[in-house]
């Protein structure tokens, strides 16, 4: 028992050992969900690999290469790289309003030649690493102190404010959920969470004033879809009709009438679950949710088995990200929460969201491969 907590010498793992340590069933689970997505995209396109399913396959292959690269790099590298990565992501987010590309009334993209990417996606990964890095550094006996809350709150708050200014309410909320969830996992006192919830409730009316008109409209329409059935309530209503009409067994693969009839917008991205639930019915939808839940369970148990708090929090944080995406997306298309543009991870069409999620899962696997690693004080270094 004493050996376990001693400052163990840094073990180096060779590639063969790493391959052996990799959680292969988890990888199979990821592939399984991606395949469901590709089948769904094939159906959305009316039975064609063009224009979506084919490209999604290529993206998954690229993502897989990235996933292995991330999983097999030494975890100490990621520990060292966490803050620099966070700062780069922060810098890029700050650059977006200055040199970003505007699309659909919001400025979220940075363009590099033909490529364009969203710094806020990079931030979702960097935030998890940076908070995990912070709690690896923070001596556990100091965790109760109020001043120990300041750095992680800044790490969450600054990117969230930048996201709000884009304006991208969904991403800002996501940063908050992931960051606060990780602080909870790290062991921050219950008391602070109680206080935070109380103050948020008190601040809600003020926040409401700050929302953009279209965001207010979405929230209001959510509470009363009949407010504007031809306008923004239309999406929710059509999505509910499509899901509901799927019934127990669904209308059959490629037989969904609502989605095929172009009643739904964004049916290959944010509303792909709607199409899936219409064609595969209650049984299919629950099965897909079960796959996600299984994935979350895998991640939780991988996190429990890690020895360092850094690895635990990286895995736990990525799990929170995955959960937040799935829950918000499905709750949105079933009319439980207002329409916010959040894709269904690994299934929705889209290069950026697919890559972000796969990279995140690469870090989960990295934590798992390095589950026995502990860090010496010198390796953790100072706050910065």
């Amino acid at each position: 028992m004493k050996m376990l907590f001693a400052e163990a010498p840094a073990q180096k793992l060779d590639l063969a050992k790493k391959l052996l340590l990799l959680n292969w069933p988890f990888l199979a689970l990821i592939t399984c969900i991606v395949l469901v997505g590709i089948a769904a995209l094939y159906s959305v396109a009316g039975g064609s690999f063009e224009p979506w399913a084919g490209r999604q396959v290529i993206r998954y292959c690229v993502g897989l290469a990235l996933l292995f690269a991330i999983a097999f790099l030494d975890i100490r590298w990621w520990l060292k790289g966490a803050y620099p990565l966070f700062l780069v992501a922060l810098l890029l987010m700050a650059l977006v309003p200055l040199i970003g590309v505007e699309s659909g009334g919001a400025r979220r993209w940075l363009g590099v030649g033909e490529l364009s990417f969203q710094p806020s996606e990079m931030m979702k990964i960097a935030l998890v690493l940076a908070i995990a890095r912070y709690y690896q550094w923070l001596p556990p006996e100091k965790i109760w102190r109020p001043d120990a809350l300041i750095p992680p709150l800044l790490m969450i708050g600054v990117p969230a404010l930048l996201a709000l200014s884009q304006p991208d309410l969904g991403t800002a909320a996501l940063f908050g959920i992931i960051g606060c969830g990780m602080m909870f996992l790290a062991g921050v006192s219950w008391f602070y969470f109680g206080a935070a919830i109380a103050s948020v409730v008190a601040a809600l009316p003020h926040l409401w004033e700050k929302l953009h008109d279209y965001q207010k409209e979405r929230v209001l329409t959510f509470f009363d879809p009949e407010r504007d059935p031809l306008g923004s309530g239309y999406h929710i209503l059509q999505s509910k009709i499509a899901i509901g009409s799927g019934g127990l067994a669904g209308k059959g693969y490629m037989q969904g009438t609502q989605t095929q009839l172009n009643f739904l917008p964004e049916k290959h991205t944010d509303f792909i679950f709607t199409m899936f639930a219409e064609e595969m019915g209650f049984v299919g939808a629950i099965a897909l949710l079960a796959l996600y839940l299984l994935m979350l369970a895998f991640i939780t148990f991988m996190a429990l088995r890690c020895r360092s708090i850094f690895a635990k929090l990286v895995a736990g944080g990525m799990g929170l990200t995955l959960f937040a995406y799935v829950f918000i997306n499905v709750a949105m298309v079933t009319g439980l929460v207002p329409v916010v543009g959040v894709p269904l991870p690994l299934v929705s069409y889209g290069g950026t969201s697919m890559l972000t999620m796969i990279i995140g899962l690469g870090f989960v696997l990295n934590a798992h491969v390095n589950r026995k690693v502990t860090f010496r004080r010198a390796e953790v270094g100072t706050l910065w």
Partner: protein
Amino acid sequence: MTKSKAVHYGAKRKPDNVRKQSYRFSRRALLVGGAQAGLFGLLGWRLHQLQIREASDYRLLSDENRIMMQLVAPARGTIRDRTGAILAEDRENLRLLVLPAFCKSLPVTLDALSRVVPISRATRDRVMRAAVRQSGYYPVLVAEGLTWRQFALLNVLAPQIPGMRADRSAYRKYNHARPLAHLVGYVGMAGKDEVDLDPVMRLPGFRAGRAGIEKAFDQQLRGTPGSTKFEVDARGRVVRELGSKPSTRGKDLILSIDHHLQSVAQERLKEHRVASVVVLDVVTGGILAMASTPTFDPNDVVFKVDPKAWGRLAAGKDQPLQNRAIRGQYPPGSTFKVVTALAGLHAGVIDAHETMRCPGVYSMGRARFRCWKSHGGGINVHEALKQSCDVYFYETAKRMGIDHLAAVSRHLGLGRIYDCGLPGQKAGIIPDQAWKRARFMEPWYGGETVIAGIGQGFVSSTPLQLAVMAARVATGRAVLPKLVLSPDDQDREWPLLELDPHHLEIVRAGMIGVVNEPRGTARRSALEIPNVLMAGKTGTSQVVSTRNEHLLSAYERETHALFIAFAPADNPRYAAACVVEHGGGGSRAAAPIVKDVMTEALLRDAARRPAFVSANQDGVPGAIAIVGDGG
């Protein structure tokens, strides 16, 4: 504290804390996991509610009677000229579409349809291909521009031909199309960027302004789309309408143009390869005519477009899509002497009485600048303008320096673009010392001032700018051009220029001399209307340096011909500018055009007649509220 001691100390008390944190993580991770499972349970409950408990309701909505929402494209606003004549309007376009998914057999449907509407082999292939490529629920266009007879017949036959749909949309029709092509512009399908910003633009048949007024005032003209909710049966037939939000028609625009004058101007330009002419109402700034040749017919590019013809137009010889009146930048040549004279008088370096001698050449240091002829002695400012003596203005420019000349040029409206709703304007160049430093990182040379004095060298202007300059000289006010009329800006007066009225009078007298006195350069273009005089100034600008001359064709070597004018000279109402590219001398090529167009303007006197007012017109459209800026 040494390092080994620290490790020892740490090793002794850390495990406890680290173990505690690890246990706490496990407890909380399981708690979070439990919460996640619980929230997934909530999703499961919701799916159960939608797909099991309420499934029959939704299935009814979906299978038996589908609710279909159709966006209704708004009618685009009409564009009229000041007399109320329609320049651009929406016309009804009767279309035939098929929904392949609802056809029993697409070939059979097409056969049935071809008995009413001729369907070519190519169209047939296109429809068949489209039906395979995209979802069968997406309508495919078979024919447009149907006659009423065909449309009525199709509607009668509709119950027997499943999957067909005949509908009414709109296309854009341009009248007086060729003369007004550049000004009014044309519409086209929305680009990808615009579709991203406003999904409504994806609607088939929705058109956005692509050029000219149609582009600049797209927001006003466009209107807002409406929507109709239908119940359709499983075969896509409309069962009933559930309600609709009507579309709002776009606003009408009334232009300051007089289409009759515009046509005359266009007709008059026809004999030249590339030329343009602008006529302004100097009191309001309203553009009465703005013609540019070569031109094109916008009707060819908006409806039943032939892609090959479009390609020919876009890449055509002499670029027919370009509006030379606002995009052609020419050295103003001697027309610029009007500016040099005013600037010289303003600077006090010349006065009305001082005379100079013109030996036909002007020397400055080692450089020699030629005059177009030897004018002899006794040349004062009046004679210099009238006979267009270069030497006089070389000296004037040299005396005052380039920065003063540039400042007065800008005060007269040159070197800038105007906020009058014409997209794609060029600013031209009014050079000064700062400009040259910024542009070439080189100091300004004295010789460059001298040639700027006769509107050569770096100086360049568009025909519209030259017309504005003429209008400002004519009125002594900071006139700005205007293209769209609004009912409540009739009696606005432009602010006075900061120039001595007496100086303006001297220059105007010189311009009257150009057209009406012996030895005036445009003597042959005097008006033939009794008791009405025109004032003007010719310009012949060199386009190529002698060094490159041998590389060019005879046409390209020829000088540009320019003429600016205003009339009636004693009480100005109209100002005009004309540029004929490679037209030779200003007095020979440009002045006669202005004479004819000006005669037409004076005889019709459109500016004095009240402008047409539409009920569907913006009071003061935000985008075009023009505030005089004093030049």
